[in-house]
């Protein structure tokens, strides 16, 4: 338990470095969205909104800190532990900060037979990071994932909301360029 506590407080410290938000608080617009989601379920079953609300939180803060999770618990009137156990179960929730662009490359059988290993190797070299790491500039994180349901369009990866399919080395180059351009334009 002690160890977990230490980890969380360290993570909280990191938030200053990676995010513009130092306080976990939804905008008015997002709060209205939370209300709308809760209304989909029967009275008293607002806990059902937990997964969608955690998605909203991650969209806004980039990852789920313990502070964010506590805030979500408060919004849904449930115990913080109920949020922690869910956030740690599902692989899409980031429990530590990630790069602005996360390359989630599929490595399961059907992608493997179409050459996903070469693609992962190429991204590693190109970005100079290992799987699970983030580039020093905070732009890119490389993650390997299990089957994303695009087996016919392999090799593939998820980038944000969308899939990038039929990957080749040239396509990877172009995607990295595109991300760099977008990042520069947003700054």
């Amino acid at each position, binding site marked *: 338990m002690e160890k977990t506590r230490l980890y969380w407080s360290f993570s909280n410290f990191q938030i200053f470095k990676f995010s513009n938000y130092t306080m976990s608080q939804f905008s008015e617009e997002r709060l209205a969205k939370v209300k709308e989601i809760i209304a*989909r379920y029967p009275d008293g079953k607002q*806990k059902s909104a937990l*997964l969608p609300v955690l998605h909203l939180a991650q969209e806004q803060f980039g990852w789920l800190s313990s502070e964010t999770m506590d805030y979500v618990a408060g919004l849904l009137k449930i115990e913080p532990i109920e949020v922690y156990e869910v956030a740690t179960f599902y692989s899409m929730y980031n429990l530590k900060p990630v790069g602005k662009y996360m390359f989630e490359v599929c490595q*399961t*059988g*059907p992608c*493997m037979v179409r050459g996903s290993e070469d693609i992962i190797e190429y991204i590693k070299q190109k970005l100079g990071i290992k799987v699970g790491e983030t580039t020093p500039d905070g732009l890119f994180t490389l993650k390997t994932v299990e089957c994303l349901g695009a087996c016919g369009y392999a090799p593939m990866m998820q980038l944000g909301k969308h899939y990038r399919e039929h990957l080749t080395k040239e396509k990877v180059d172009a995607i990295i360029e595109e991300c760099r351009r977008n990042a520069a334009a947003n700054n």
Partner: protein
Amino acid sequence: MGVKLLLDKAHVEGIRYYDVYRREGGYRSVEKALKMSPADIVEEVKKSGLRGRGGAGFPAGMKWSFIAKPEGVPRHLVCNADESEPGTFKDRYLMEFLPHLLIEGLIVASFALGSNATYIYIRGEYAWIPDILEQAINEAKANGWLGKNIQGSGFDCEIYVQRGAGAYICGEETALIESLEGKRGNPRIKPPFPAVKGVWDRPTVVNNVETLAAVVPVINMGGEEYSKIGVGKSTGTKLISACGNINKPGVYEIDMTISVEEFVYSDEYCGGIPNGKRLKACIPGGSSVPILPANLLFKTAKGEQRMMNYESLSDGGFATGSMMGSGGFIVLDEDQCVVKHTLTLARFYRHESCGQCSPCREGTGWMEKILKNIETGKGKMTDIDLLWDIQRKIEGNTICPLGDAAAWPVAAAIRHFRDEFEWHVNNPELCLTQNFGLAHYADAREVVA
């Protein structure tokens, strides 16, 4: 050209939008269904012989007829769009290109089951599809097919889309229900079945996307007519998502009367193997079902031609057959290593085990480790027997079928490719750079090159 019931309009431009969909005959099944009694609709679906398209193949009409109807307790329909079985991407195709077909099927099924609030639980990674579905829902609502008093029938129905967050196990219906309730996706012990105690302890039916879409042609043409398509207990059409080493990966609709050989080599479907290579093995129904070597894929052990339907694919049981499963058709060519492919699947199941039952939680990790050793030339001959022993102890000893799903691919790989595993053990260095080859290509001369 086989019969097409689901994808016949898939290539009409703008079919994703309501106006075009309606003009092409969309929502006729709702008009028809609202004039029928719910019991009659269930009866039609029973007559059609429609089987669950998610993998288990349980008759859909039967499942619907089990739903409990206690006085004053709301019932729910939940659409399982948590498509995560490796090799399977057919539901994604339906939702992306024909969202209104799913919505139409959902309205009919909701009416038949008495569900006023219906939920689509979609896997979290399909992050852009909820927007497509929600747009279709809004269009349907604006045209009076959803909301209060649908088309003056007095029936109210709302459809909501809920995203998961990356958990294969949530495709299991009770885990999906737990997840919909905002919990970890740990499957429940059955009974009680969801039809009695499902989401929020209310009677619930969980159906796959393709099953619900298939309700539309069932109602339009009548259960009896629908059951005439196909063969035996494999009625209607099935979507097959073909991938791996083939020329034309993609989603195909088949009417279950074509042979596996035709499916692999005909230009209408997979279009053969690229670069003139030969087929080594195939997993015909999603990663969980047994892998088949080429000699057992095209012909059953009895020497009959194997067909693309529920019965023929499982002919011979697990000893010499496989399963239709979810329709994820994975083809491996002669350059692929079965040990390595099985390792990626073992890793997948280790990653996706919810951790509730020890045989699955521990066993999947063991299997991955041992397979990794064998694949990298560090295996021992006894490891192969150990693998066999572990998979046997997982199968049937877990709350949900994920345990079986993890055990079957390993069992089948050893059953049919044991010599390839032994070759890895005997050639620890060679196996890092070379492949075992095509020893199981028994009737090479009989197969189209």
